[in-house]
C-alpha cells in the first residue's frame, strides 16, 4: 500500500551557510587525536571541500577521521547555525550563491555532530575546485514537520519529502517496510547517544573488527540507508527495546573509539511499527538524481 504524507502543508524556507575551514586545536595541545588503541594519529577530519570522496563511495579505508564527502557548510553565529542545522533536510536542493561556482546546484546528504555541527552537501566533483572556502551556499529547506499518514508515532528528522517519496517504503499490515542496506544492532552505536536527534550525527562503533565483518558493516557506503535495532531517536538518541531508527551514512569511518561512520537520523519510533527489508540498492544515489 502506498504511503502518503502531509507534504503539502510543509513550509519551504531558505537557510544559508558558508563553506567552512578545517580546524585544529591550538598550542600547547598536541595536534594528535588518540585512536582506539591509544596511539596518536593526525589525519584530515570534518569540514571543508573534500575533492575526492563522494556519496556512493566506501565509508571505510580512507586515511581520514570521519571525513564529510563533498562540501561542508556552517553559519558564522551559533543561533543561525542551529537554524541551518535543524531546518536543512537530506535531499534538499542547495545552490552556490557566490564565487566562481555561483549558481551550481547540489544536494544535502547529511549532517555532522557535536564539535562541528555542519551540513554536508554534494556537488559534482568537477566543480569542486571552483568552490572557495567562505562561498555562500543556500539551501531551500523543506521537510521539518513531515508526518506520515497512518503512522503518527513515527518521527521524521532531517528528512525531505524529495527523499522520502523515493525510498520505496510500503505499508504492509500497518507496518512500514523500509528498504535498507544494513541492520545495525544497538550495541554498535557510539558517539552521539544522548544528544539531540534534530540535527547532528550518531556514529557506529568500529573498534571491534570481527563485529564489523559479522554484520557486514565494513561494506557500508556513504549514502546507504540503514536501520538501527532497539534504538529511539524520537527526541534524543538512546537505547529502547523494540524502538527503531532509520538513517543515512553521512560521513566516513575514523580511528577514534566510538567514532565510526556517522549516521544522520531520518526516522524513528518507540513503537514496533516498522520492518527493515535488506536491499543493496538502498542508497541515496539510487533515489535522487546526482551528478557524480
Amino acid at each position, binding site marked *: 500500500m502506498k504511503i502518503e504524507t502531509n507534504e503539502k502543508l510543509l513550509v519551504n524556507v531558505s537557510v544559508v551557510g558558508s563553506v567552512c575551514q578545517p*580546524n585544529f586545536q591550538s598550542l600547547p595541545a598536541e*595536534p594528535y587525536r588518540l585512536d582506539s588503541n591509544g596511539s596518536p594519529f*593526525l589525519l*584530515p577530519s570534518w569540514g571543508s571541500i573534500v*575533492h*575526492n570522496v563522494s556519496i556512493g563511495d566506501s565509508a571505510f579505508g*580512507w586515511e581520514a577521521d570521519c571525513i564529510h564527502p563533498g562540501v561542508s557548510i556552517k553559519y558564522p553565529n551559533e543561533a543561525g547555525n542551529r537554524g541551518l542545522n535543524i531546518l536543512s533536510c537530506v535531499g534538499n536542493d542547495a545552490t552556490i550563491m557566490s564565487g566562481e561556482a555561483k549558481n551550481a546546484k547540489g544536494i544535502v546528504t547529511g549532517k555532522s555532530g557535536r564539535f562541528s555541527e555542519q551540513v554536508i552537501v554534494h556537488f559534482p566533483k568537477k566543480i569542486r*575546485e571552483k568552490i572557495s572556502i567562505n562561498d555562500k551556499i543556500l539551501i531551500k529547506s523543506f521537510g521539518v514537520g513531515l508526518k506520515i499518514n497512518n503512522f503518527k508515532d513515527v518521527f521524521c528528522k532531517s528528512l525531505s519529502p524529495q527523499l522520502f517519496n523515493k525510498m520505496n517504503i510500503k505499508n504492509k499490515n500497518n507496518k512500514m517496510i523500509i528498504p535498507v542496506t544494513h541492520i545495525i544492532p544497538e550495541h554498535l552505536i557510539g558517539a552521539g547517544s544522548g544528544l539531540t536527534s534534530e540535527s547532528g550525527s550518531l556514529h557506529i562503533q568500529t573498534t571491534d573488527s570481527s563485529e564489523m565483518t559479522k554484520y557486514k558493516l565494513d561494506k557500508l557506503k556513504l549514502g546507504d540507508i540503514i536501520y538501527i535495532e532497539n534504538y529511539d531517536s524520537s527526541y534524543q538518541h538512546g537505547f529502547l527495546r523494540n524502538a527503531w531508527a532509520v538513517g543515512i551514512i553521512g560521513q566516513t569511518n575514523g580511528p577514534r573509539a566510538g567514532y565510526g561512520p556517522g549516521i544522520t537520523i531520518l526516522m524513528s519510533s518507540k513503537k514496533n511499527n516498522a520492518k527493515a527489508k535488506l536491499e543493496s540498492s538502498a542508497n541515496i544515489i539510487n533515489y535522487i538524481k546526482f551528478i557524480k
Partner: protein
Amino acid sequence: MIPNLKTNEKKLIKMSIGGYVTQPSFKNPGYIPDNDGNSVILPGMYGVVNNVKVGDKAFGWNGDHIEPGVSIDSENINEHFALHYLVCTGNKAIVRSGEAKGKTGIVTGEHARNLIHFEQNILEKICVGDQIDIITHGRGLKLLDFPEIEIKKIDPNLLKSMNFKVENKKLIVDVAIELPIKIMGSGAELNSEYVDQDLMSGDRSLMKKLKIDQMKLGDLIVINHADHRWGRSYKKDHVSIALCIHGDSVMTGHGPGIMTIMTGTKKTLGWRINKKANLKNILKIKL
C-alpha cells in the same frame, strides 16, 4: 624516481583550506639583536616577497627569516593550526580574491605561515589580505614498502618526483647538503608537525667550512642522528630528511629553517649527496 615505489596515495583525502596573504609586522621598537648584540632592523617574515624565490640562496640576503614568495595565514587560531597540519609542500594553491583571482601557485613549504610560489607576473597582482585556497593532499601519506619511514606533509606528486634508489632494502634519498645535528636550534620546542626548525648559523666559519653557507631555498637536506617523529630531538642512528624553506637570520639560535618531510632509522633510510636536489628542479617550478 622509482616507478614502482608503492604508496597509499589513493586513500588520501584532497581537502580545501583557505588562508589570507599576510602583512609584514614588527614589534615595537623594531630592532632585533644580532649574534654580536647589535640592534638591527631587517625585512623578514610575512607578506609578499617579490625578489626572493625557491632556488635562490638561503644566505646573504639583507633580511631575517626571509620567506620566499607569498606567506598566508588565518587570524582564527584553529584555522591557523589546520593550515599547518593539512597543507603539504607541492600542493596546488588557487587565488580566490583580488586582481590575481583564479591564478594558481604551488606550496613550497611551511614556516610560521604557509609559503606559496607564484610566477612573477602573478605575484605583482597579489594584495595583502587576498584569500588563497590550498587543495591539501598528502596528510597520511605512507610508503607501503617502508612502513618504518614516516612521511610528513608532502604532496604525493612531490614524493613521486624526488630522486630515490633502493639498496639492500634501504631507501636512499638525494639531498643537497648534510647538516650536523649539533647546529639544529630553534624549533626543537615544537611538535614536528608544526612549523620548522632553524639551523644555528652563528658560527660563521663553520658554515663556510662545511659549505652550509651555499645552501639554497628549496634544498633537500639530511640531518643524521635526528628523530623527527613526534618532536625534533637527537637520537643516534635516526635520520631526518627536510626542506630548506626560509632564509638566514642574524639572531642567535636561528638561521635558515628546515621543515621535516621524512624521518626513520639508518636501517631503512639513507641519503646520497646531489647538489641538484632542490624543490625548484624537482617540481620544475617556473619563476
